[in-house]
């Protein structure tokens, strides 16, 4: 339990570090209007960036089959990054950029084996589901909400896959909130 809390904390620290680096900054004078959703999307984007780094680390300590699945998930996270970045730019904002891999590596927990990798992945996907559902509830009506919904659903699929890889039931609950 202690190790798990530590991993959660480490991942949160990685994400928050990136957010503080860009997503949480005050908007520039000619940037997006307040309430546009750009700041919110940037916070989620920061978490996606840290997730890609986490998956790279997780893949390194996993066996070939799991590694292939984790890389497939990471590919989709990259697609999410691209989509979120475009939306933020359209709103007049500046998408937060990912940090160098070495910076993420310092904040990620030490992964000993595939079991650790899947624990990290599960925590990450729960955070991503929660973050996108939180964003969905705060974004203005229209296509921003649709994008948040489409990504939240994708993250829920990742969570189910990761749970399955860890030998747990993929879809244990009717409502997926990212808080289990």
């Amino acid at each position, binding site marked *: 339990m202690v190790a798990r809390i530590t991993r959660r904390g480490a991942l949160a620290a990685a994400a928050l570090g990136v957010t503080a680096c860009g997503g949480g900054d005050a908007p520039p004078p000619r940037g997006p209007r307040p309430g546009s959703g750009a700041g919110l999307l940037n916070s989620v984007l920061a978490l996606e960036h840290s997730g890609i780094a986490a998956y790279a680390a997780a893949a390194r300590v996993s066996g070939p089959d799991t590694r292939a699945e984790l890389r497939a998930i990471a590919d989709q996270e990259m697609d999410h990054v691209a989509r979120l970045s475009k939306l933020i730019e359209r709103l007049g904002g500046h998408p937060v950029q990912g940090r160098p891999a070495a910076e993420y590596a310092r904040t990620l927990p030490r992964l000993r084996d595939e079991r650790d990798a899947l624990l990290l992945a599960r925590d990450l996907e729960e955070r991503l589901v929660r973050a996108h559902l939180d964003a969905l509830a705060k974004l203005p009506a229209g296509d921003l*909400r649709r994008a948040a919904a489409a990504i939240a659903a994708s993250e829920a699929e990742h969570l189910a896959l990761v749970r399955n890889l860890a030998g747990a039931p993929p879809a244990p609950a009717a409502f997926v*909130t990212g808080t289990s």
Partner: protein
Amino acid sequence: MTLDRRAALAAGVTAAGALVLAAPAPARSGADKQVLEQLIALEIRLHSAYETAARRRVVDAGLANLLAGHEREHADGLARVLKRRSGGGAVATVPEPELNRALSGGQRGFLRFALRSESEAVAAYADAVTRLGDPTLLQPLGSVMTGHAQHLVLLRKALGETVLTRAFEPPERGAGGTQSG
């Protein structure tokens, strides 16, 4: 395992509770009521499909009963919201003409039908959240939608297909991204 179940139950209760808590006032508009009615009808149709498939032993009973149970939870939660908001009662549904054809197609035929139906459910929720006027409904409806997304994973696995097929569920027009399967 026990902890997993407890955690899952707690998460489910939280989301189901959020649906109820989101219902203290009359519906803000007839449009929201209509959206809720459409989603309830969708959930009831899915529940009925899985229940029928389990009863006729067309698919693995464990899978069908799990999914039927989830759809029932979704329908019940949405119905409570609708009732408290507008006094609305049961939502009428018509039998799915496609269901009988799917059932006659055996396990594979039904799983394909279920996969298509779950995909349509995710799309229906993703569409609903763009239009809802009441923001307190967004997160709970989102957690139902993500539940349906996880059903897609179960069904693709049961079909022996690639589990992750696209980065956006439902696919977004013009979003680009990885598409496979």
